[in-house]
């Protein structure tokens, strides 16, 4: 697959829950994400979006299937995968006692960047994201929007080719959410492969080059917005989404 930065083949993830027993969180899912494209994982809560993204980020191992990120196997070459990705989710918190600059510098060093390289890249990122005015403020004094910008800066300091964003606009006000969306667009323009999960239709509609609708661990449909509309001529993305979910249930 040309330009395929993420290849997910027959991915299955099974959990064993004390109360529920065997739970199939992701069930035989297949998709590809390409360089310079935004791929949206659309689904309600509990659909399997976060689990899929955690597997891509090497935080979880698949029960079955093969997942390659930037050509590296997520289990066999987990370290190489982590070099290739920038991961952001509600779980990836920030250190309250550090300033924005200290946070980004720390992650730059962890990712093997030189002091000079970090300074150069940090200046560039802080300017692009409009973070310069709070770069020396401690994280515990930042607003939610500022923190989200810092999280993005932290995730991209090593300039990874693949960006994995799990619901990056959740809990943000309209203005900050819009700024985040714009930033994601900018990353696409830089040629990065972006996969992001959301349950907000308008966000997916506006931003994604390709959309995968996922529900109860199953991938119901995948394609461009135009493809989906052709396949399911029921109206906008929201209508398509509900039609697919209702059919499944």
């Amino acid at each position: 697959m040309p330009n395929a930065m993420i290849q997910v083949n027959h991915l299955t993830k099974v959990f064993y829950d004390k109360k529920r027993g065997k739970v199939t969180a992701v069930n035989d899912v297949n998709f590809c994400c390409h360089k310079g494209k935004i791929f949206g994982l659309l689904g309600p809560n509990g659909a399997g979006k976060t689990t899929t993204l955690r597997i891509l980020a090497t935080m979880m191992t698949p029960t079955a299937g093969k997942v390659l990120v930037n050509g590296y196997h997520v289990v066999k070459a987990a370290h190489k995968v982590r070099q290739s990705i920038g991961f952001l989710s509600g779980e990836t918190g920030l250190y309250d006692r550090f300033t924005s600059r200290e946070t980004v510098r720390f992650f730059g060093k962890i990712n093997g960047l030189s002091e000079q390289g970090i300074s150069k890249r940090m200046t560039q990122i802080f300017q692009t994201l409009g973070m310069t005015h709070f770069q020396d403020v401690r994280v515990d004094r930042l607003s939610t929007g500022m923190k989200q910008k810092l999280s993005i800066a932290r995730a991209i300091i090593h300039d990874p080719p693949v960006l994995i964003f799990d619901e990056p606009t959740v809990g943000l006000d309209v203005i900050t959410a819009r700024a985040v969306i714009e930033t994601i667009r900018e990353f696409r323009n830089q040629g990065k492969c972006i996969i992001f999960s959301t349950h907000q239709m308008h966000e997916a509609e506006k931003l994604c080059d390709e959309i995968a609708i996922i529900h109860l661990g199953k991938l119901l449909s995948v394609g461009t917005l135009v493809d989906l509309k052709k396949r399911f001529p029921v109206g906008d993305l929201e209508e398509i989404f509900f039609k697919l979910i209702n059919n499944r249930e």
Partner: protein
Amino acid sequence: MNWKKVLLIYCKEIMGAIRDRRTLISMIVIPLFFYPLLFLGIGYFTLMGQEKSEALPSLVAVVGTDNTPRLIEKLEQDEKIKLVHLKENEVEALEAGEIYLLIEIPESFDIEKDQENYLTIIVQYNSTIQRSQIARKRVTTVIEDYRQQMIQERLEQIGIDLDYIQPIQEEWLDVALEERKIGTILGMILPYIIIILIFVGAMHSAVDITAGEKERGTMATLLVSQLSRLEIVLGKYFTVMTISATSMLLGLIGLSIAFLTPVYALGELSLIKAKFSLSLFFLFFLVLAPLVGLASAILLLIGIFARNSKEASTYVTPIYMSAIFLGMISLSQGMELAEPMFFIPILNNSFTFKELLMGTVYWKHLVSTLISNIVITLLALLTAAKLFKKESVLFRS
């Protein structure tokens, strides 16, 4: 494994700890100020109470016949004894603490004249009242003096010298070296105090940088970075060790200040007099460093396993109590451990440390202590790194 990355994590954690008021309180304020103040407070009030009790005259009531006039006279002559005359309810007065001692002289015969007989004086006291204990001591001395005087008089009357009935007299001389005396006192309390200091110092930071990080969501940020699980564990482990060792050293400094004050009068023991050589300090290090390492590794493991700080604190409590229990065994004087017992962590540290303080080096015990501590620490660290890979531990909620 990249040691530079371990150092990065270590520096990050230390920086975070320095900026965290709670860690600073548990690492610096409590050991350096709180413990000494606590001990000074306890010592001061005990001393004050004792001094006050010693200064007060003992209120003693005498009931019964007046056939021991010289005893009564001796009691009256003692400045620290004040005889009181109660007409009734003497026992109730003693129980209530209104008098401190009750002497009953039975109505039988005149002991001063009837030299063939003996007299049993009943002295009642209240062991729960310190002043009664002091009165007992004072009255015992007076009675003993009276007894000796009477013995001498009786013997003189039949022409026998007092030495005749005391053919042997003993004189006790302590040959223990000053260092060893100090070592015995320190050996009893110091291992126990050090165990507490190490655990208290390590507890907060171990929980904060593991379970606390999970709670704040920063652990996942580390896990998706280019760090191996072992690098993360080691960076955090060395942080907990540093904080725990700092807390222990500051605690020892604080307690030394407290114990050298006039309140404890341990200053007279002159700890400086104890000839702690450089090699002995190295041996102390050999015993204490593995203990710091062991406590840090176990507490870190618990923190990683726990869902959140609250759960971690619950798991840490029995570990802390067990450590205190093992440390308390060293408080008992005369207790000796069998060789295999030197493989029990904490217990072996406290006993080996005790031996060193008393000036004896048992290499066998030192080696057993080192081996058991290192093996358990390594196991705890490897388990911690393994737990970091377990989804069931990382993502359970």
